[in-house]
């Protein structure tokens, strides 16, 4: 059982190191990268099925008992996030094999992708706050390197903004951890759950909670801390954009969900009310920002922000149904959003541009691609019977049950505006005739076309499957939400039974 928890971190790290060592041979490196991604998916599936059958799993590294040692914990939320991250990692590696030109770019891309995956999985499995911070840094370093890979001016400019805000976020996170340690004398999350209840000055604790909201909020790109995201996400290679859009901000959302259900639940009236406001404003600003854009990836980047708002809404409602909806939303969103970025890459590859103005006629020329765009795009907008419909339905129902009618209305309105954006892409890129001045699209080698379309088709199939057969994911989200609302299960798994 120990290995199940350690593998999702060790496999990508090993793939990164071996891939870096084997950078002399393109074939070897791609082989290692693919093998690493497949192995990670298998390990994640193993971990997930273990947690599904037996509940929360915890490992004390080196045999040091919690709360003194390093603990890795996988509950339903962590295991599901690891599994979906592994899936996106695999899709990205396949896509990158088809998309990236041979040469130095591709040499650095694969090892860094795996380093990023290690950071992401580590953050999902970390059982103490300091290790969470360290995995955030692993993720940050890898993402910074991926972002500037290629060294185009726009990438460097985007990286300046991304680096500046991310570094502030991690330093704030570090200060928050220091202050929390000062108040409670522990770093283990399960132990923190118990110790924060004994802190005398609850006002001080709320202050520390707000530091964490800001730190993780910057990572998750919530209003008003999102400016780094639309400045940087459209600049790197498509494979990098896709893995960023799927995973990076969601680690921030995951951390918020973890902290504000397990540790900071002493003053829900203040912290979660703050999160409610943040959620509403994030949804609205994100979708309005998207409406003003005319480039595929920039539209999609702004939509990440508005979708983050939905996830935070689920957390902020702080009911089982709300969290259920939030978790459902996160998983649906990771698959759909990464897929949309893949589609934008395929559009760029097949039509030679991602500017809506210069695109057109793709529905006639590439009907398969049009169908593959249709599924994730209208799932994002919440059309039944696709996965986004269930996610939105759950969240809006949770809002209504909590009597947050304004937020339910906002969520509906933002869904409508998302339809507007997706229709805009559909009309411009797929429906209207290709403008004369755009010239003929560039040719794509047949083998590469298959490598580009395979991950898109697989992710679109998963989206449809979740939509038509939402039961299993609903049950998963229900279990994860129940665990989050009742932290005693988590505490018992980490500190041993009878520690209550």
């Amino acid at each position, binding site marked *: 059982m120990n290995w199940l928890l350690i593998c999702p971190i060790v496999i990508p790290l090993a793939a990164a190191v071996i891939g870096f060592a084997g950078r002399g041979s393109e074939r070897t490196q791609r082989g290692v990268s693919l093998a690493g991604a497949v192995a990670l998916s298998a390990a994640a599936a193993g971990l997930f099925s273990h947690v599904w059958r037996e509940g929360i799993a915890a490992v004390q590294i080196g045999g040091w008992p919690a709360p003194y040692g390093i603990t890795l914990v996988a509950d339903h939320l962590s295991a599901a996030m690891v599994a979906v991250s592994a899936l996106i990692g695999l899709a990205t590696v396949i896509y990158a094999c088809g998309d990236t030109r041979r040469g130095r770019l591709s040499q650095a891309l694969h090892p860094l992708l795996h380093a990023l995956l290690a950071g992401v999985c580590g953050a999902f499995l970390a059982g103490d706050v*300091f290790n969470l*911070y*360290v995995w955030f*840094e692993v993720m*940050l*370093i890898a993402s*910074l390197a991926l972002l*500037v890979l290629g*060294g*185009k*001016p*726009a*990438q*460097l*400019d*985007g*990286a*300046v*903004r991304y*680096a*500046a805000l991310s*570094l*502030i976020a*991690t*330093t*704030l996170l*570090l*200060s928050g*951890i*220091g*202050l929390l*340690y*000062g*108040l409670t004398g522990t*770093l283990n999350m399960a132990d923190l759950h118990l110790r924060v209840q004994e802190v005398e000055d609850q006002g001080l604790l709320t202050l520390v909670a707000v530091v964490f909201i800001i730190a993780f909020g910057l990572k998750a790109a919530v209003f008003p801390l999102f400016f780094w995201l*639309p*400045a*940087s996400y*459209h*600049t790197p290679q498509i494979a990098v954009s896709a893995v960023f859009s799927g995973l990076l901000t969601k680690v921030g959302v995951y951390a918020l969900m973890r902290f504000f259900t397990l540790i900071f639940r002493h003053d829900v009236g203040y912290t979660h009310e703050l999160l409610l406001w943040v959620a509403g404003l994030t949804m609205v600003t994100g979708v309005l920002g998207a409406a003003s854009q005319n480039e595929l990836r920039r539209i999609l980047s702004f939509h990440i922000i508005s979708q983050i708002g939905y996830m935070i809404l689920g957390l902020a409602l702080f009911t089982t149904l709300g969290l259920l909806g939030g978790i459902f939303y996160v998983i649906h969103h990771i698959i759909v959003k990464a897929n949309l970025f893949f589609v934008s890459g395929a559009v760029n590859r097949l039509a030679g541009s991602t500017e809506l*103005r210069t695109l057109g006629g793709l529905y006639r020329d590439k009907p398969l691609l049009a169908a593959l765009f249709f599924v994730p795009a209208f799932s994002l907008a919440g059309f039944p019977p696709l996965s986004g419909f269930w996610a939105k339905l759950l969240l809006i129902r949770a809002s209504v049950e909590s009597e947050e009618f304004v937020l339910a209305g906002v969520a509906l309105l933002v869904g409508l505006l998302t339809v507007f954006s997706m229709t805009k892409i559909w009309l411009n890129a797929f429906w209207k005739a290709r403008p004369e*001045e755009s010239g003929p699209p560039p040719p794509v080698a047949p083998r590469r076309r298959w490598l580009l379309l395979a991950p898109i088709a697989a992710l679109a199939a998963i989206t449809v499957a979740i939509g038509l057969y939402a039961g299993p994911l609903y049950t998963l989200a229900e279990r994860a939400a129940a665990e989050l609302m009742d932290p005693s299960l988590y505490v018992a798994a980490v500190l041993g039974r009878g520690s209550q």
Partner: protein
Amino acid sequence: MEPIIAVLVGVLMTATVYLMLDRNFVRFIFGLALLSHAANLVILDSGGLTRARPPLIAPGESLPLPDISNAVPQALMLTAIVISFSLFTFALVLAFRTYQELETVDTDRMRAAEPSSAGAAADAGRRAAD
């Protein structure tokens, strides 16, 4: 001792904010360096400061002396220093490369990723002319 460090953290934060509000990206990076020092001091300070009581176990003993200083914040700090140092280095290289490509360190004049609407129009005009 703790209040003195706390005041020092406050002074560092003030300098950080001043430097970070500058449009010059290099000064922003120095602000970041100060910010990470402040964060490290926060960790050290919130763990409590004990003078001349190293957390060591004397030869022949199995337990340390009572009232030793807390080693955990120091371990955390060391890790954090290494990480922030590497990020600082990356930020400096990034600033240098950006200066090479965009020929400015003024963040207001870096418009490569998000061109202003006037810039985008000029850009589009140039592309149409090609």
